[in-house]
């Protein structure tokens, strides 16, 4: 019964954060779309792609910023390279902020308490928050795949890139949720969630 009310909470979070979620999804999708469309227009031929790729191989500064120069003489490779770590970071931030908003922020302001006093299980709020963030990240992943397909990239690679971005977003949001949730209950203050409790016994948030 610790998950009682999760469904209702999910609907509620989608309602209360619909603008926030829509903006995140649209924002990340637009970022990928603008990169894809500009690379596609900038390097219309293979010769252009080769010319663009040539100075990047072995350019340590660029590699440090954007990641390994993998297949950057192809359209897909160049788009993914341009998005690079930045694209992944955006996905991660999206997952992290959505989970944080629906867990820590609500808890800190006492809204979680208001909900938890109703017929809502102990783990329902965090579960709902994680599922909503996961869904938002997954939808973004699908949109990214569609963007890649829109510049005539192969289905397989497009799907893999969308899935990779989504997986990264989930992997960042989930730990932040699962790590935050129990600590939120067992640490004396909110900043306690960012550092490990020194005592071995669980400590609850002081009233």
């Amino acid at each position: 019964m610790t998950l009682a009310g999760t469904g209702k909470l999910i609907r509620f979070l989608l309602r209360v954060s619909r603008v926030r979620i829509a903006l995140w999804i649209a924002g990340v999708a637009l970022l990928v779309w603008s990169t894809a469309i500009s690379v596609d227009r900038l390097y219309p031929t293979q010769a252009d792609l080769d010319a663009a790729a040539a100075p990047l191989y072995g350019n340590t500064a660029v590699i440090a910023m954007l990641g390994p120069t993998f297949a950057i003489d192809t359209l897909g490779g160049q788009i993914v390279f341009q998005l690079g770590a930045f694209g992944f970071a955006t996905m991660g931030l999206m997952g992290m902020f959505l989970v944080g908003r629906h867990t820590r922020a609500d808890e800190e302001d006492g809204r979680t308490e208001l909900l938890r006093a109703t017929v809502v299980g102990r783990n329902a709020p965090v579960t709902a928050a994680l599922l909503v963030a996961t869904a938002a990240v997954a939808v973004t992943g699908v949109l990214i795949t569609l963007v890649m397909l829109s510049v005539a990239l192969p289905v397989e690679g497009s799907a893999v890139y969308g899935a990779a971005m989504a997986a990264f977003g989930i992997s960042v949001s989930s730990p932040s949720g699962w790590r935050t949730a129990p600590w939120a209950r067992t640490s004396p203050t909110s900043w306690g969630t960012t550092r490990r409790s020194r005592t071995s016994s669980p400590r609850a948030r002081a009233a």
Partner: protein
Amino acid sequence: MDAAAISVSGLVKTFGHTRALDGLDLEVATGEIHGFLGPNGAGKSTTIRVLLGLLRADSGDATMLGGDPWRDAVALHRRLAYVPGDVNLWPNLSGGEVIDLLGSLRGGLDRHHRDELIDRFDLDPRKKARTYSKGNRQKVALVAALASDAELLILDEPTSGLDPLMETIFQDTLREIMAGGTRTVLLSSHILAQVEALCDRVTIIRLGHTVESGTLAELRHLTRTQVTVEADRPLTGLADLPGVHDLKLDHDRASFDVDTARLDDVVRYLATVGIRTLKSQPPTLEELFLRHYGDELAELEGVAERGDGDTP
């Protein structure tokens, strides 16, 4: 069967080195409004969080509506409604939406009663919560709780931020919903007038443990009545009477405190010396409270004096 709606004994809860609850006892009978009094930091909210299953006590027993507050939290929450003392809402939801959300999460609420209460508390349910004052946010939580059919209401300083008019409306509404006699209220408060007006019994806690519990009449028993008297003959006998304290005697005039239980003896004596004027002030809950927290107040006053006295 035991009629206690809430039964707590020896509750202990520590946060690190702080003992927030230190062997707290609380007994709330079904059908009563039970006042839960104590200064800030006495452990009122912590106790309520334990009862709501939001915190797990370190030791001690707690039973609520025949269940375990931690283990049976979800089932118990169907039967209770809660109003915190500091309500924060979702800024982009309207008050009406929040009331309906809390209602639906609890498993429905009486639409008619909801509208009536919104009207009575003079709340605009269409406004977004971000535009609400503290008092209005408090009203939202109050309406959501009072419109429910919950058999137990847990109210943690529910009227903080409300003006005196709304305070009256709150008291009237609470009395109305109590009329059936099947509902129970745990009312944590430090507005003593509110407690005196509403509560059948009170529990006073301090530093995490119960210092006094009983009906208001029982507790008054423990207090002193202030008497000022002027008589025809000298009041020399007063000093010998048991239960008379802080006597200021000036021949045929006196002012003193008397243990309320000894009041009868004092009046008998006064009758023999010929009363010219008599003023007696019944003990207020305030005095009862002050007696328990007197030393803390003294401490505060000491601080104020050191601070050049510009803090009250």
